[in-house]
């Protein structure tokens, strides 16, 4: 554990990523305390006399949106949406992927094969299109969006876990355990699962980046998180027709999405390097 921490600190990009992740988490948790206004408060002086949004200035640090709401406040509350969906959707995806991959790799035979064929089938779905269709045709809400993303994202994890489990099952210590009379549950949970923890941690981090991007995309198309509940994607969705006049309404949420996804990617990539030395310096 200490070795992991020390190796992590030696990578400047990973440390940068971790700091940004922590800032986003703190910003999201403390949003009601540190945000200058309420997220859906249409401020009296939030629009110019002509009714246009106000650019970044001393009062509104990041400017206001087309309804005269404070952008900084909405970004802070939007961080909550992104993180909740990131953690819930990706957590679900990793759990499903772990379950199916491990089961298929352990069972092998026709049952294992059938599970992997199903995974192949899911790989052949146009993922983004599927997510948009599902999100649009259900009545979109935060939880629906999270479940839709989980349904699309578990496939990759399942394939990696499957390959790893296949390798583990062949190893001598599993054979030894089996000849000692250990049941399936004992082998799977006490001996195989612990070996998969690094993979779960790496994908639990990298996957959040993908999830944050997908949520933002769905919300940008208007089929994700619904206004007035703020999400970084729907802030851009609401203001895209004004973006030539008020580019800050696209730029600041865009930077928030980019920095968050980038940071989770940097942290996950460093973890993969450290936890899986065979991959070191390759990707």
């Amino acid at each position, binding site marked *: 554990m200490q070795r992991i921490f020390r190796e992590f600190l030696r990578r400047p990009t990973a440390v940068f990523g971790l700091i940004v992740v922590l800032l986003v988490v703190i910003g999201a948790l403390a949003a009601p305390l540190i945000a200058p206004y309420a997220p859906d408060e249409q401020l009296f002086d939030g629009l110019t006399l002509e009714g246009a949004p106000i650019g970044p200035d001393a009062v509104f640090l990041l400017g206001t949106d087309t309804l005269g709401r404070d952008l900084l406040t909405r970004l802070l509350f939007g961080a909550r949406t992104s993180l909740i969906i990131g953690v819930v959707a990706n957590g679900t995806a990793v759990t499903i992927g772990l379950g199916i991959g491990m089961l298929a790799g352990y069972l092998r035979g026709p049952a294992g094969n059938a599970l992997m064929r199903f995974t192949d*089938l899911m790989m052949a779905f146009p993922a983004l*299109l599927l997510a948009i*269709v599902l999100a649009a*045709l*259900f009545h979109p809400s935060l939880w629906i969006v999270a479940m839709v993303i989980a349904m699309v994202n578990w496939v990759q994890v399942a394939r990696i876990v499957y390959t790893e489990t296949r390798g583990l099952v062949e190893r001598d210590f599993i054979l030894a355990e089996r000849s000692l009379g250990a049941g399936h549950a004992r082998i799977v949970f006490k001996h195989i699962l612990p070996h998969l923890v690094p993979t779960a941690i790496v994908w639990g981090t990298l996957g959040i980046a993908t999830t944050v991007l997908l949520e933002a995309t769905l919300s940008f*198309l208007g089929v994700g998180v619904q206004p007035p509940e703020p999400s970084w994607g729907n802030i851009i969705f609401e203001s895209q027709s004004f973006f030539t006049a008020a580019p800050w309404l696209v730029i600041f949420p*865009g930077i928030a999405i*980019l920095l968050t996804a980038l940071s989770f*990617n940097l942290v996950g*990539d460093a973890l993969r390097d450290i936890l899986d030395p065979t991959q070191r310096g390759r990707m």
Partner: protein
Amino acid sequence: MIELILRRFGGALMILFGVAAITFVLLYALPADPAVQLAGRSATAQTVANIRHELGLDQPLIVQFVHYLGNLVQGDLGRSYTQKTEVMTLILARLPATLILMVSGILVEVAIGLTLGTIAALNRGGAVDRLVMTVSFIGVSAPQFVVALLLLYVFAATLQWFPMAGFGGFSHVVLPALTLGVLGAGWYARMVRSAMIDVLNQDYIRTARAKGVAERTVILRHAVPNALLPIVAMIGIDIGQFMGGVVVVEAVYGWPGIGQLAWQAIQQVDIPIIMGVTLISSLAIVTGNLIADLVAPLIDPRIRAR
């Protein structure tokens, strides 16, 4: 070889059947009712029932599915609910725009990714390598729609070098292709770098260098061709993804491709079009993978020998 192709082809057909079945069940089990949507807000229950009967939606799901499959094997994807046209005709009309965007996007991706990945691999561990890897990480972490909007803002609205939206000459395709290409190049750069590092450690590269072959020739003639394999596989995947997945770029740039058709159909609950586009995209994904598998032995004789 022939047997392999036939087996892969059979597998591809099974996958397409599965995609059709799952999409069908999903779309018809969803709460959005196309008949209600079509009838409009003030329609009576009788009107809705009539529309449902007309579209065949009042029959059992399995009957509808068998009917759909029967038409599908004849190349018939059904009729659009709202546009009253054959879905196949609508998709074929959108095909050229999607193909143009796909080809130009992949060209940009490969050009940038191959160059950056090679440069990074040659400077492995150095400052240039770290810079390229960081930039490619930014590329894969950037939201497509934000980059699309910013490119529009800078190059179309402010500098007016390119048109804001639409389909036409070369100038129309530049920004959409750049959006797809610049972001996708991040994946390619990482993949190329990793493949190149593997190749550069091989004996034949050392031999070539020991023979006194110029470094330029070592890289371009000996190393790059051997690192191409993973790129071919990635292009195969991209062909599939771009056929149905460029909804965002097509929406922002008003590009009249298959993604836009799908996006409009989703908003109108036009199920036959959604079905059709999903199937065509899956077909493209499966074909893309198949082509990549078949091209691999042509590029690398070692695979042929196996």
